[in-house]
């Protein structure tokens, strides 16, 4: 190449690079703008606000440092709602994951009935939870609901599931499990499908014939990453419980079913203690970040099996 041609080629390639840069930035611009406006800026505002004493409608505000957080620690209502949330997650997590796994394994082996079971178990996931929660309220009605009628047949006293402080949260947990099992089942089915069939055949030849051995030696280890993923997603979803509380119990009776998000909602949008609600939201976010960090870490290991 002559010097002139070389120079022209260099200029052309620099032009291309510049064009690529401009195009890239142009393509990314709307998303970046929205990201800043609807995620990042609000996040910053939220954090800053949590250090103030602002209530909605006030004219001004002061910085009070960690005052809101200290108040939260000392607030028995907040502590109770955090505790309730953890209890809820503690009930939902093992059952939603465990049942999802069991159902997936059982359904995976079916040939003709598989589609039927997949559809049935997945229905709750597609349904509008609020609507179904209303139906659940009726199902659990102490006098009119079929569940209590069924219990009556067996000789058990009718229970006011949603008005009994000891039963309200577990009942919501059962509904939460009802809502999630199909989702986890689908995720586990995807994981099961990814296990190569010839592993089971090689195992059959190697003597790994009965169901217990096959599960322990192949199914469970190969499902490892999927299981971790399901655990983390279920934890996050359970932690964000809100709909059933808002529609069925409104946090009652006596705050026994008030969960973290519901407290935030009340403080922020009913009582308008904005700064305090912001602090609670920061706590909420902190927990979620821990869960998500675990999820990211697990996903990293997922690609390890190659």
């Amino acid at each position, binding site marked *: 190449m002559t010097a002139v041609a070389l120079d022209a080629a260099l200029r052309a390639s620099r032009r291309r690079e510049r064009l690529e840069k401009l195009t*890239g930035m142009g*393509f990314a611009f709307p998303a970046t703008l*929205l*990201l800043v406006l609807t995620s990042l800026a609000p996040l910053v505002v939220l954090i800053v606000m949590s250090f103030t004493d602002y209530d909605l409608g006030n004219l001004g505000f002061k910085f009070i440092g960690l005052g809101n957080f200290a108040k939260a620690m000392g607030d028995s209502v907040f502590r109770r709602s955090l505790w309730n949330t953890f209890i809820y997650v503690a009930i939902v997590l093992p059952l939603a994951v465990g049942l999802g796994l069991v159902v997936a394994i059982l359904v995976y082996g*079916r040939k003709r009935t598989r589609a039927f079971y997949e559809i049935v*178990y997945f229905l709750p996931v*597609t349904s*509008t939870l609020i609507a179904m929660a209303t139906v659940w309220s009726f199902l659990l009605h102490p006098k009119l609901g079929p569940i209590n009628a069924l219990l009556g047949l067996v000789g058990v006293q009718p229970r006011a599931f949603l008005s009994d402080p000891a039963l309200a949260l577990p009942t919501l947990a059962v509904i939460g499990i009802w809502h999630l099992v199909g989702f986890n089942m689908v995720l586990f089915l995807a994981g099961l499908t990814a296990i190569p069939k010839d592993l089971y055949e090689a195992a059959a030849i190697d003597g790994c014939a009965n169901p217990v051995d096959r599960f322990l030696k192949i199914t469970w280890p190969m499902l490892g990453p999927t299981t971790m993923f399901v655990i983390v997603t279920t934890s996050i979803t359970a932690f964000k419980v809100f709909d059933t509380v808002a529609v069925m119990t409104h946090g009652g009776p006596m705050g026994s079913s008030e969960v973290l998000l519901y407290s935030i909602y009340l403080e922020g949008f009913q009582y308008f203690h*904005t700064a305090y609600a912001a602090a609670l939201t920061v706590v909420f976010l902190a927990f979620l970040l821990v869960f998500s960090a675990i999820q990211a870490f697990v996903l990293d290991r997922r690609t390890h099996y190659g």
Partner: protein
Amino acid sequence: MTAIRRFLSLVLVHGFLLAGAAFVLLPFVWMLVTSIKPPDEIFTATLRLWPRHFSAIENYRYALTSAPLLRFAFNGLIVCAGILLVQLLVGIPCAYALAKLRFPGRNLLFMLTLLALAIPVQVPALPLYIALAKVGLLNTYFSIMLPFFLSVFAIFLLRQFFKGFPDDIIQAARLDGMREIEIVWRIVVPSSLPAIAAFAVFSFVAHWNDLYWPLIVISDANLATPPLGMLFFSDAETGSNYGALTAAATILTAPLVVAFLLARRQFIAGITMTGVK
């Protein structure tokens, strides 16, 4: 396995699955059945499943007239469609840029999207609410849709997908004189339709069923999305008209369920996308 053992294991398996299925279907069945029962049958505490007299028309008519249920469904449609449209319009070019183009700040942007993945809508809710209130945009379709216009999930997902798209095809298109924006919409997108369709399903379902944010920004029942509408309706009807309540629940749940039954594969692919996440 001998025939008897196989038979027994089948009985056990199906027994368990059917018991579970019964539990899962219980609310749906009860909802449908109650919505066609007259009030006197609802209020007798018997376990009778099938009604003796049919009140379907009355219940449904009451539900439809005392609450603008169809309006709620319509709102849901507008909101979800609007959200999806903007999500795709904004997300696809951004995902493409992150996957295929080099520009300053690309890595930073990607890191930020990863961070935003962990932030659910409840976090920016407070500040956004205040901002919308100050601008007077509460109680509008726009206010419901705003926080969701950007779907970092879409960007993340599509970026993964676009990364796998062969560079050669893109280079060939450039050589043919196509501008980058055309390449995105006329070449890359058509071949990514399965992923986009699955995401569309995921997004639509998620926002149809969303309660928290609409609850915060909407107080006008005319703009309520299905979950919010149901909440209004059930609060108004506290405890009394179960026939109408279940009729309303049926009407509001039906669209998604029917869509699911028709497009089961897309639904499940969409939901499993979170697995790919």
